[in-house]
């Protein structure tokens, strides 16, 4: 019976081969650090290998792996109440949806993610990585779907606000740059910090 279950999941080699890159990417976006992402990925695969015989639905292995990364991450972090309070206080404008081109650079994107507390960021990352909605995310994380909806919606609004604001800032900077004002881009970024 045991081997029957194991057969649902390929060998450890296949598990690693198929998913290590996605697991690492998720771990990096979650932790914001390449060193932490490496540790989390290693640890997640060790945990997953021990538990792999338990997996019943092979289609859900990647989501399962990502929740292991998240659980591992949580064990290494203290909850940051001030960060959560600050995040929940961020004002989001609700009526400015004209832009249809975003050009945010890698640094801006990760910086914006780093400012999102974990319990908002995990649903957001699962949404994009797994392309799943609130019901599946709630199932994955074991949290009520109403909670997932409010967290996901909030996380997406704040991320959009920050990236679009950054986008506008850099557009303004470029315009000003073209008027021979080389200091403008720096000052816009400093202002943002």
């Amino acid at each position, binding site marked *: 019976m045991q081997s029957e279950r194991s057969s649902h999941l390929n060998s450890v080699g296949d598990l690693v081969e198929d998913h290590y890159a996605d697991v690492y990417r998720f771990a990096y976006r979650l932790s914001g650090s390449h060193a932490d992402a490496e540790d989390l990925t290693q640890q997640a*695969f*060790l945990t997953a290998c021990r538990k792999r015989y338990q997996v*019943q*639905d092979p289609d859900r292995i990647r989501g399962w792996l990502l929740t292991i990364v998240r659980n591992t991450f949580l064990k290494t*972090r203290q909850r940051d109440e001030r960060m959560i309070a600050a995040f929940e206080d961020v004002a989001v404008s609700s009526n400015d949806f004209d832009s249809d081109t*975003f050009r945010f650079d890698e640094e801006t994107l990760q910086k914006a993610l780093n400012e999102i507390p974990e319990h908002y960021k995990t649903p957001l990352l699962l949404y994009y990585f797994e392309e799943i909605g609130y019901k599946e995310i709630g199932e994955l994380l*074991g949290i009520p779907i109403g909670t997932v909806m409010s967290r996901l919606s909030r996380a997406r609004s704040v991320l959009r606000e920050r990236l679009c604001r950054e986008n506008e800032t850099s557009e303004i900077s470029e315009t000003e740059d073209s008027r021979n004002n080389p200091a403008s881009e720096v000052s816009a970024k400093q202002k943002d910090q």
Partner: protein
Amino acid sequence: MNNQECDEIRQRIDCLPARERETDDVLSSHLMDCPECHKYAEFQNSFDRQLRPQLLEVAIPEGLKEQILQSTSALDDCDLSESEDSVQNAEVEAELVRPATVRQHQRGSSLLKWVIAGTAVASVIVVMMFQWTPADPQQRLTYDAAKDLLLAQFQEMSPEEWDRLSPFDQSFETLGIVDPQLSEWTRSETVGMSLDDDPQHEVAICEFRFRQWSGVLITFSADEFDGVPEQSYSASGQSVLQWRSPGGDLAYVCIVEQGSAEELLTEILGNFA
């Protein structure tokens, strides 16, 4: 137009993946009549199309795959269900994982921890027996109802006792897909309980039905609990079963409200044979 309905629609847009947004009837009918929400939906589609590839664009460190394969190779061939292996694997992990600022829940005395955890959960059970109204497990167990029950009891107990429970947060892994012995159980939506405002859930709770049995199932992390399935009784004489998951990571406490607890225990023991 920007009323409560629009707010709900926009939240729905935020929470559905792009492919489901296209086929969602509720969205479609609203977007036909509401240009503002239509604009919002288009904006989100465009935003997601550009954001997702960039989110996934993370350079993978050279040699990472080989490192993982090396550290996991020892686990490839062994029978992972054996508890001895779990111990060995834990040691492998301990060596491999870089020390980090770990949350205060250290794995202390396993026996003490189990006793405390058991006491805590047993206390919860007593409260629940007085307050719980058995419901159809297909119906959703509300978070607020479950949390009220647990918090009511929590206030009467020393918070340190709850704090000694390991963070659990594996309700999906355990109850959703991975625990074969529970695959036949019909369960209400699992409620992850966080007792001290921490994002991690110390306890997961749901109502269940399995053949002739029904009741409440509480799950929490108890890696160290080395017990075999056993039956006990609450202060008021209700049957309570305790056992651990086959992988040994989780402890289950089951309040049997309908059906013979002895027979359910025999059934569970069969899975351990």
